[in-house]
């Protein structure tokens, strides 16, 4: 293709060059020709003018001479005695060389001058006898050429006859001079010839007697015409008394020849103009033409060449770009199709969870807890899958940077719970060790896009699972620190670490590009789209976070995401647990410490141990001190003795009294039976947030309360009977409320006697079933209040049961109460059993 283009371009240039040379060459040649033609034309025009002028001049000269002759005749008639002297005198004065009388038989009688002879007497004599005026050429006895001017005149001759004409002679040189026939440096020269070609007057270098001979001899070939044809043409024109003009080559140069007939004679004027100098000029012109043509042609060629080269380069560049674009398009298309076929990676992870969990649920239909657990995970995975599919569909959106984050209040606990739930089955399948580490949690709830955060973590984790061999280690860490963005923000660190195959340095630089996966035999068998990391990077970027990758081949990888997230105000509804002492057992010291800190913030003191053996020892020590731990949190996977064994050991020494709870990031369904058998009381899944611990331990707190002091079996329930309690002391009020609410009473609180009276007065009759009355109250004491109530005789219930509750328990006090109108008296401290018995008596 490239060769073709090159050949085409070269051919084009060559054709253009040839065309250029041809056109300009033709132009030069044609112009040369035209100019030479114009020259000939100009020459002809010029010669015509010149010949006319000379002819005219000749005519004028001859006329002038003839008029002289006429003057001579007119002024010197034959009647004059000495006419011959007079004639001679006058003729001399008029510059005639000689003067003679011409007889009709053709003999001259000289008046003065040498004897002359007419060179061609016939026509001259004929004309003279006919009374015409005529010139002819003659020679005198010395051989000097003379032009003889004859005019009819009648003078007596010496032989007695009368002459037919008077003939005057003037030198040929005079004619030449007058006609300027022989001028030096003149552009043109002229001859005068007769019909037969013989010269009458010759000029320049003409030395032959006959002009035709001259043509014959000096003729050079031109235009293929022979000298003969020229001479013939000339003769023919002379015969017809026509003007004749031609261009011919004489003496090696181009000459223009023009021939006209001269008046008063049988002569013809031949004017010749050599082109010599003009040819030089024309040649110069044509040379210039050629040069101009050459240079302009060259210039045009050069410009065209340059244009061609430029175009060629452009075309070459475009071709390269086109090739690159094609390559890119092919790459993209390959990547996309690869992506489509390999979409499994991101989608399969949660899909596997769904399928697996469905199978587990099906197999455990009789175990509702298990089914519920499975369903929870299925729904988590399903939700994630949905989000992921949306992502894939929105891939174009993501790539064009139009993805938006849906920032909402997110509980990190829920996020991590969900992720751990999704990833657990995969980890289990590869028997990997998984750990979730939590520390320095400042704010459990933050504002974040939970779906995206899920996606990021799940991507890291599923990669870690994928690229870590069986029984390898994977850890997810979450910790927080104050953010540089302000007090409203918290810096969240998320780390996913594994000891898998790791990545090469080169691959680490492009790990976040789309559709990339490390090549090499060790990765080939692992499926994946290579899209996950690109999406992850994009999401973290969109959250203004950073991703850091540390990896070494064969050693493992560590992904570290740092996000500054806005804190969400936590709704920590009174997260307080009983004042327990607990033991936390985990091989991760960091987890132990953070868990202990979290526990202490919800009212529990805790110790920690790093392995099962130490834990058992500590439990024993406490047991011997009669100071048993209330609850023991036990990691399942422990070095040495594992969680289940440790639990068995503790149960062996402690019995069943102390709840033992397994903590684990694994799905405990498979060990549940075994764990229950050795006496494990329950499970809490990692990560251990404060809320995780609180909600996980609360059931034990309730059981703890109940177990410790069982309610009296004869407990009465008052089914929400409304009681008015007058008590000025907060603490006493609260204690009473706590105790009495327990037995089904509903209490309204009056802070002193007066308020008590008012509340009673404002209540509907029969609303309160009884009044519990403190005695010592400010503003109005119990006695006065009782009297006031009893005084409301208009009310049907003014005899409502009023029971005194007082710290005074002397007999006289009791009597005083009864006197004031109360029905009974209870001494403080409040005893539920006693109160309920009394109330039972008074409330029907």
């Amino acid at each position, binding site marked *: 293709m490239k060769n073709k283009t090159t050949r085409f371009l070269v051919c084009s240039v060559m054709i253009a060059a040839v065309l250029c040379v041809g056109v300009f060459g033709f132009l030069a040649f044609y112009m040369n020709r035209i100019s030479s033609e114009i020259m000939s034309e100009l020459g002809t025009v010029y010669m015509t003018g010149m010949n006319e002028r000379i002819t005219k001049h000749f005519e004028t000269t001859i006329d002038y001479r003839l008029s002289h002759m006429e003057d001579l005749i007119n002024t010197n008639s034959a009647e004059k005695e000495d006419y011959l002297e007079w004639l001679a005198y006058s003729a001399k004065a008029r510059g005639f060389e000689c003067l003679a009388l011409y007889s009709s038989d053709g003999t001259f009688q000289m008046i003065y001058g040498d004897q002359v002879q007419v060179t061609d007497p016939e026509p001259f004599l004929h004309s003279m006898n006919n009374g015409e005026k005529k010139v002819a050429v003659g020679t005198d006895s010395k051989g000097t050429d003379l032009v003889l001017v004859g005019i009819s005149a009648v003078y007596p001759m010496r032989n007695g006859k009368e002459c037919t004409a008077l003939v005057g002679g003037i030198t040929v040189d005079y004619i030449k001079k007058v006609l300027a026939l022989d001028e030096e440096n003149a552009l043109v020269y002229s001859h005068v010839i007769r019909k037969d070609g013989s010269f009458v007057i010759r000029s320049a270098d003409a030395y032959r007697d006959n002009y035709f001979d001259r043509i014959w001899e000096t003729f050079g070939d031109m235009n293929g015409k022979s000298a003969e044809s020229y001479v013939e043409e000339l003769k023919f024109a002379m015969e017809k008394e026509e003007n004749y003009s031609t261009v011919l080559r004489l003496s090696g140069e181009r000459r223009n020849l023009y021939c006209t007939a001269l008046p008063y004679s049988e002569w013809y004027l031949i004017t010749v103009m050599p082109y010599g100098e003009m040819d030089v000029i024309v040649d110069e012109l044509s040379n210039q033409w050629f040069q101009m043509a050459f240079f302009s042609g060259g210039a045009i060629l050069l410009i065209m060449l340059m244009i061609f080269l430029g175009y060629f380069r452009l075309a070459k560049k475009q071709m390269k770009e086109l090739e690159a674009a094609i390559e890119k398009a092919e790459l993209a298309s390959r990547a996309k199709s690869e992506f489509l076929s390999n979409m499994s990676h991101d989608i399969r992870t949660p899909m596997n969870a769904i399928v697996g969990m469905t199978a587990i649920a099906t197999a455990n239909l009789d175990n509702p807890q298990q089914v519920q657990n499975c369903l929870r995970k299925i729904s988590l995975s399903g939700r994630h899958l949905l989000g992921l599919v949306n992502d894939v569909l929105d891939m174009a959106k993501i790539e064009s940077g139009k993805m938006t984050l849906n920032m909402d209040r997110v509980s990190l606990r829920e996020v991590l719970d969900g992720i751990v739930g999704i990833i657990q089955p995969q980890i289990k399948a590869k028997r990997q060790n998984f750990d979730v580490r939590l520390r320095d949690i400042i704010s459990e709830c933050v504002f974040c896009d939970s779906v995206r955060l899920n996606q990021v973590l799940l991507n890291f984790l599923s990669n870690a699972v994928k690229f870590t061999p069986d029984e390898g280690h994977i850890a997810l860490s979450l910790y927080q620190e104050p953010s540089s963005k302000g007090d409203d923000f918290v810096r969240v660190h998320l780390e996913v670490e594994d000891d898998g195959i790791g990545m090469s340095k080169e691959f680490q630089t492009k790990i976040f590009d789309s559709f990339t996966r490390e090549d090499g035999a060790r990765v080939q068998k692992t499926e994946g789209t290579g899209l996950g990391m690109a999406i992850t990077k994009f999401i973290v970027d969109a959250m203004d976070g950073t991703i850091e990758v540390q990896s070494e081949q064969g050693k493992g990888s560590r992904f570290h995401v740092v996000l500054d997230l806005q804190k969400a105000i936590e709704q920590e509804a009174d997260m307080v647990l009983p004042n327990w002492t607990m033991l936390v057992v985990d091989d991760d010291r960091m987890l132990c410490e953070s868990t202990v800190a979290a526990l202490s913030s919800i009212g529990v003191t805790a110790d920690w141990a790093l392995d099962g053996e130490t834990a058992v020892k500590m439990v024993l020590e406490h047991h011997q001190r009669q100071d048993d731990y209330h609850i023991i949190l036990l990691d399942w996977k422990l070095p040495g003795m594992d969680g289940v064994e440790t639990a068995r050991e503790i149960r062996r020494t402690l019995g069943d009294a102390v709840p033992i709870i397994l903590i684990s990031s694994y799905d405990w369904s498979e060990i549940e039976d075994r764990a229950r058998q050795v006496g494990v009381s329950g499970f809490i899944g990692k990560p251990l947030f404060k809320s995780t611990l609180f909600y996980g331990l609360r059931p034990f707190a309730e059981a703890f309360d109940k177990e410790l002091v069982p*309610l009296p079996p004869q407990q009465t329930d008052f089914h929400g009977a409304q009681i008015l309690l007058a008590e000025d002391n*907060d*603490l006493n009020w609260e*204690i009473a409320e*706590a105790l009495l609410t327990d037995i089904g009473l509903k209490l309204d609180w009056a802070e002193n006697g007066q308020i008590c009276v008012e509340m009673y007065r404002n209540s509907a009759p029969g609303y309160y079933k009884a009044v519990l009355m403190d005695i010592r109250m400010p503003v109005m004491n119990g006695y006065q209040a009782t009297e006031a109530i009893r005084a409301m005789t208009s009310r049907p219930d003014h005899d409502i049961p009023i029971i005194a509750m007082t710290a005074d328990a002397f007999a006289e006090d009791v009597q005083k109460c009864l006197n004031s109108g109360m029905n009974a008296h209870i001494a403080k401290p409040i005893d539920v059993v006693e109160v309920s018995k009394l109330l039972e008596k008074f409330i029907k």
Partner: protein
Amino acid sequence: MTLQECYQALDGNYDDVLGRLRSERLVQKFVLKFLDDKSYELLCSSMEAENWQEAFRASHTIKGMCQNLSFTRLQQSSSNLTESLRNGWTPEAVPLLDQVKQDYQQAAAAIGELKASLGL
């Protein structure tokens, strides 16, 4: 310090209170609230202002609270003071007030320690 240790320190009857309130949690909650009550301050200021009636009532309230919480020692001393003030001022009131003050401080210290050990 545990709640039990606290009761030991302020000379109260832990088993008694637990028997009545039936929950360590409740006991702890009310013990912690004991110091919030203003009756003690009222007692001291009333005694100083020689408002015997008000002092009697305050002392009586303290006694009631102590009965509820089984703070045996403070209950006894406050009860004594109450009786000495029931019919106005008596010379015994002064040393009895000192005893109440001493016992109250002891209880307050114990509760304070408990609070501290709970991280409050």
